[in-house]
């Protein structure tokens, strides 16, 4: 437990100490939040009621999809994981501790957004705080697991950009952050169901903000949970200590299994 705690505290400090992580964990999402608060609330009247979950989702995506995978690939390539392995640091700690420290960073950012968005930008306040927190935790877990899985399977930093942007960019456009996903044309709406942000927004709208969800919000909760659990398990299963000497020999294409819940959702919820 002491080792785990030491490792966790170290990882958390790194999230504040390293400039690139500080940027992705705090400066970019909070700067973007202020900018959107100043611009979008005036331009788009549908934005303010769901501004809090939208901005939290941007923060979570920046922290997990853009911030989490790179240190994993860099550590593997630089031989840092080899040092960890010979000193008895378990793979479970390497996978779970960054996920946990991201939880703390994201909860801090979420608190800042939630506390300030109402008074400063007249944002909608959650009607059900229990569901709000529950969906927040589930969203961070799912995205952090996805980010970790990307770091585990990406052969190098260039692939991280590719894999992360495959989720990040469509989510920004189609993910229900700026406009509700049920306002999209039917074909785009079906495609948008492949994005985790759509399910987080749908669950928050339906369960925490007393707004009309695009579809059953409990299905969104289930899809996020199953996908997050699959991603977390696969991140441990596919983890390699060494970029040159792969002991596991497991097929990284297995990572695609984590998309299965979203595909099933798109088939059954899109109609």
């Amino acid at each position, binding site marked *: 437990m002491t*080792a785990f705690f030491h*490792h966790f505290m170290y990882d958390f400090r790194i999230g504040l100490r390293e400039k690139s992580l500080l940027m992705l964990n705090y400066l970019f999402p909070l700067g973007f939040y202020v900018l959107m608060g100043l611009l979008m609330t005036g331009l788009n009247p549908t934005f303010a009621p769901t501004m809090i979950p939208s901005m939290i989702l941007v923060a979570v995506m920046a922290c997990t999809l853009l911030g989490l995978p790179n240190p994993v690939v860099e550590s593997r390539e630089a031989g840092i994981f080899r040092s960890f392995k010979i000193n008895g640091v378990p793979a479970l700690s390497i996978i779970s501790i960054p996920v946990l420290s991201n939880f703390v960073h994201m909860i801090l950012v979420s608190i800042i957004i939630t506390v300030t968005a109402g008074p400063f930008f007249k944002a909608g306040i959650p009607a059900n705080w229990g569901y709000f927190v529950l969906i927040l935790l589930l969203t961070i877990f799912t995205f952090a697991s996805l980010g970790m899985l990307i770091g585990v399977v990406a052969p190098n930093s260039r692939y991280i950009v590719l894999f992360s942007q495959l989720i990040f960019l469509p989510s920004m456009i189609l993910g229900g952050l700026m406009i509700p996903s049920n306002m999209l044309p039917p074909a785009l709406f079906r495609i948008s169901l492949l994005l985790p942000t759509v399910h987080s927004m749908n669950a928050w709208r339906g369960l925490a903000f007393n707004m009309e969800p695009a579809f059953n919000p409990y299905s969104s909760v289930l899809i996020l949970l199953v996908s997050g659990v699959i991603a977390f398990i696969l991140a441990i299963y596919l983890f390699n200590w060494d970029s040159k000497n792969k002991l596991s020999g497991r097929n990284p294409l297995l990572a695609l299994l984590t998309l299965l819940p979203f595909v099933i959702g798109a088939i059954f919820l899109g109609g």
Partner: protein
Amino acid sequence: MQDYVVQVKDFRKVYGDMAAVDGISFEVQQGEIFGLLGPNGAGKTTTMESLEGLRQPSSGTLKIFDIDPTRQPKRLHHLLGVQLQASSLPGSMTPNEAMEFFCAYHQVNPRHDLLERLGLGEKKLSQYSTLSTGQQRRLALALAIAHDPPVVLLDEPTAGLDVGSRVELHEVMAEMRAKGATIILATHDMAEAEKMADRVAILLKGKIAATGSPTQLTASGRGLVKISVLSETGSLLKNAGVFPAVSQQIIKDEYVIFYSRDAGETAPAIFDFLKIQDDRLVDLRVERPTLEDRFLEITQPDSSNGGES
């Protein structure tokens, strides 16, 4: 306690068609410093990393305290101290943090005194990325031995170290041996192996070409004594002549170097020659064959050193 702490039997590691290590066997006793020597690509690091559990053998067995490093790596973590040839730490981690981090996983108190001893006291709060190569190597060594492991594997530990740090490292190794630790040392530094190792194995193209104590290995060679001579007028350079028992002679930096089977025959003949030439001796050195000479004999049999003229 077993007779042998480390046992390697018929170990083979193949990459595609190439055997990096081709059926080597050796044992290391408790309290012994065992040197693994060999040119680049001989298989030293592959052997070390397989003992550390970082690589899986293609065939054969490797055991440390009867534990298979590949199958039961968790049982070995507290028993093994490892300084890898190529490893790293997170760039923003400080030596202090690294010591606390790894000692926590080894369930021992952090050994900040080791950082001081290895000359990292002033750098203990600096980030890893700002340390010099030598400082990074010293930190890796401190982390490897902080939990007082009974077996220590050091892969090129003195690479990039200055003279002072090298001496300090040798003192630390001697202390560990005195406490009963077993050390396997992979090195290119023949002087280090000769000074520190109780036994060495010379690896060549994945096989053990020679093994024994440095003294045994040196004695088993052609045993040519090196006689280096510098004279005032350089008469030896112009006309060295033929001296008894000399197998080969070369010229280097104004010195004439003779490789002799019997220095007792060669040296007086050189003195006589200088007297006849009316020349005066400025410097004469007689050196017994070193482990390096023996190493070169084995690894580069066609090299000039000691080859017949």
